[in-house]
């Protein structure tokens, strides 16, 4: 009966490079890796590829980022969080990446480019570009959040923003 050392020595070099000295262990490792990746990317993280300029300079076109699906399992989304919003109810192929500025029950307005929540100015330290947006107060519903991108240098008409339902928020941008 050949020992383990003898059996690994009998393997050709390309076999050792491809599947290691202990093929059974390599198979188990591959199985575990596949299972971990499946669970991780199916239930914990969602990879997203950034398209469009609305979240500049925080997120740039072409970047691949991760969304934490479990971020809001134990608490509700907070102001300032960057969230992934499902574009339609039926799937996750296309998502919007926006920052939460208004919480349920609040009113959101823009005056000379400054964000007003319930009539009071709220500082936004993450902004790099100034703007002159004007928007009358918009009430946010009990199960809604007001989201907007970081690139306020775009004209407001071309910048997708507004109220979204809580159920459409998939998770928070993590990496």
């Amino acid at each position, binding site marked *: 009966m050949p020992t383990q050392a003898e059996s690994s020595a009998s393997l050709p070099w390309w076999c050792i490079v491809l599947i290691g000295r202990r093929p059974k262990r390599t198979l188990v490792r591959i199985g575990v890796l596949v299972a971990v990746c499946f669970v991780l990317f199916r239930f914990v993280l969602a990879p997203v590829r950034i398209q469009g300029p609305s979240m500049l300079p925080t997120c740039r*076109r072409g970047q691949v980022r991760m969304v934490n699906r479990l971020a809001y399992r134990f608490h509700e989304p907070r102001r300032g969080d960057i969230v992934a*919003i499902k574009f*339609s109810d*039926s799937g996750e192929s296309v998502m*919007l990446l926006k920052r939460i500025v208004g919480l349920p029950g609040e009113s959101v307005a823009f005056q000379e480019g400054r964000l007003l929540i319930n009539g009071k100015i709220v500082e936004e330290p993450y902004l790099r570009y100034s703007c002159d947006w004007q928007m009358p107060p918009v009430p946010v519903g009990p199960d809604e959040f007001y989201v907007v991108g970081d690139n306020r240098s775009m004209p407001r008409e071309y910048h997708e923003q*507004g109220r979204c339902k809580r159920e*459409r928020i998939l998770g928070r941008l993590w990496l």
Partner: protein
Amino acid sequence: MKSRLFPVVALAAIAAAGLWGWRACLPSPEKAIRQRLDELARTASFGRNEGALARMLNSDKLAGFFADDAQVKLELGNHVERLSGREKLRDAATSARLALGSLKVDLHDMNIVVGADRQSAEVDVTALCNVPGEPDPQPFELKFLLKQIGGDWMIRRVETVKTLR
């Protein structure tokens, strides 16, 4: 043993082929609608090299997916485009094909709800449109209302849905 096994295998193969044929020839409403909308997306897409005759034929084919009294309401930014009737749709499709140069439409996340009568259906879908000159595809959330007319699923209404209100 071999002679006993052969009829069983042959019967199983015939049954599998029959099932496949049944499903291919008589697809479920969901599958038929999915195929129909995928075909619509392929027909709506066109390349730069589309000639005048092909443009006319493809516009005609595109209009053929819609019912005679079809209604279309598309919100593109602040502009709202309303079209009604197959003829208007054909004209609009020809004009759009002429103006855009090329277009690629992909449909994702199709959610099909067939009515209790099995003759009507509502479909929610995300459309990604690639237009020349734009670095990123433009997404639209669309709601389709379809009705089975003469054995085909015809579109009676299409409208864009605002993801953020």
